């Protein structure tokens, strides 16, 4: 049930991020989630888009260096305390989160969190045991 995340190498230099968004805009690719991890010299831009395959090919054509990484998306109620049970379940199962960030949808009342976890299967099972399920591509409107 994992979702494809595109990770892109970006040098810390003015205009680098704008180049990525311009390429995606020109090809009418919709970004659903965006996160950046950076050092002083460079960063990794992490994206979830509506059409990962198309985005990958147009970014590669434009000379970007990227990789695809599987991530899990969890739907939680969009209210105070919505995320806590998910992280508590992870803590209980002693699973580490490499990184996480939020994802936008048009669905009322729900918030979505993207998780990068080493063992995705165990993560899914753990959540399921707590009555929490992963969101699939259809639910998120991703191709």
């Amino acid at each position, binding site marked *: 049930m994992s979702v494809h995340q595109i990770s892109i190498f970006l*040098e810390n230099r003015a205009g680098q991020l704008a180049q990525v968004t311009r390429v995606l805009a020109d090809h009418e690719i919709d970004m659903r989630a965006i996160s950046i*991890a950076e*050092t002083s*010299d460079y960063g*990794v831009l992490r994206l979830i888009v509506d059409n990962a395959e198309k985005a990958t090919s147009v970014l590669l054509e434009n*000379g970007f260096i990227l990789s695809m990484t599987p991530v899990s998306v969890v739907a939680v109620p969009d209210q105070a305390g919505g995320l806590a049970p998910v992280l508590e379940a992870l803590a209980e199962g002693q699973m580490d989160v490499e990184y996480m960030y939020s994802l936008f949808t048009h669905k009322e009342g729900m918030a979505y969190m993207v998780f990068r976890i080493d063992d995705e299967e165990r993560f899914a099972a753990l959540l399921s045991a707590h009555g929490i399920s992963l969101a699939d591509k259809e639910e998120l409107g991703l191709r």
Partner: protein
Amino acid sequence: MPNYYQPEIETASREQILSWQNERLVKQVHHVWNNVPYYRQKMEEKGVTPDDIKSVDDLHKLPFLTKADLRDAYPYGLMGKPLSECVRIQSTSGTTGRRVVAFYTQHDIDLWEDCCARAIVAAGGTKDDVVQVAYGYGLFTGGPGLNGGSHRVGCLTLPMSSGNTERQLQFMTDLETTILCCTPSYAAYLAESIQEAGLRDRIKLKAGIFGAEAWSEEMRHDIEKNLGIKAYDIYGLTETSGPGVSFECCEQTGMHINEDHFIAEIIDPETGEVLPEGSKGELVFTSITKEAFPLLRYRTRDICVLTRKPCSCGRTHVKMSKPMGRSDDMLIIKGVNVFPSQIETVLLEQGYPANYQIIVDRVNHSDTLEVLVEMAPDKFSDSLADIHDEEKKLVAALKTMLGIYAKVRIVSPKSITRSEGKAVRIIDKRKI
């Protein structure tokens, strides 16, 4: 006031110097012909035999040696004496990572130290002086050379090696150092540290002997003013022995080449043709007294000018200008020879594209080296920690190859500036 270590040699007549050179050159060519098959083959290819070399006038008939020859003949191919008669090696970096290793018999070391002693005495050194040697010791020739020269003069010698500024200043003040030997950039840094520490009144320095890297007249004036000393230049290269091939006298208008040991020529780097005195060109040295590593017509790649105009110090040996540049792309960073090709070798070995850029700068009187490397698809990872690990591996590999730290900056693919299709590989921002 003239100060000579070996006055009969340093002020010998031109005729006398030429007669030594003729006699020693002929002897040296026979020595090389009989003991260095690598060079003998080069001579045979050129159709030259020892009988063709009767005096310095015939020197141009001999083939050149280059850094590439040193690499090809590594490590023993240019030795003139069996290992059993050698007592030391010194080493410097080569063009593609293979180091230059020079061998010395005890006699070679004695003559090298004599040359360094001449430089120390020319800078006013006597047995009453305290000489602080803050050049690196070890394979680098700077420390061992000046150390030996200082012993010969009978100075109290402080074998400090480079770095550890606090300790340098402590010894300099407590033991009242009078002559400082180090790279000019380190001298400038020490001068600044002395100001900051408020130690100017406790410094007893009178002279400095600074070499192993390029420095300008402005830098000389700054060092002289800030330390209250006279600053002397010294020149040399591992291939011919080390520092002391030439040195400055009180006139400070060029460095006297020790012509009783080295014959200097200036050539056109393109054609190899010998140029007349006063022309700017590449400096070529023939060692006429070295036994273990007797290089004939070694191309230094340093561009300079020679002059035999009489010198007010009384020395009669030819003077060379400060090197004005290089006829190859070698950089001298922190006194260490760095070739762009070495960096390229490391990048390719580590799986990075060979499209790189080297930025050299001088920050707080110390050289800095930064290497811009383009990100490669198979080096990329979603994890910053993985990218950082790759970067650390690259820094370590560069350190092993170059002997100095290079900061690595990973940049976007195909982002390194190309002018007319060719990348600008080296940006040297140092104002020298």
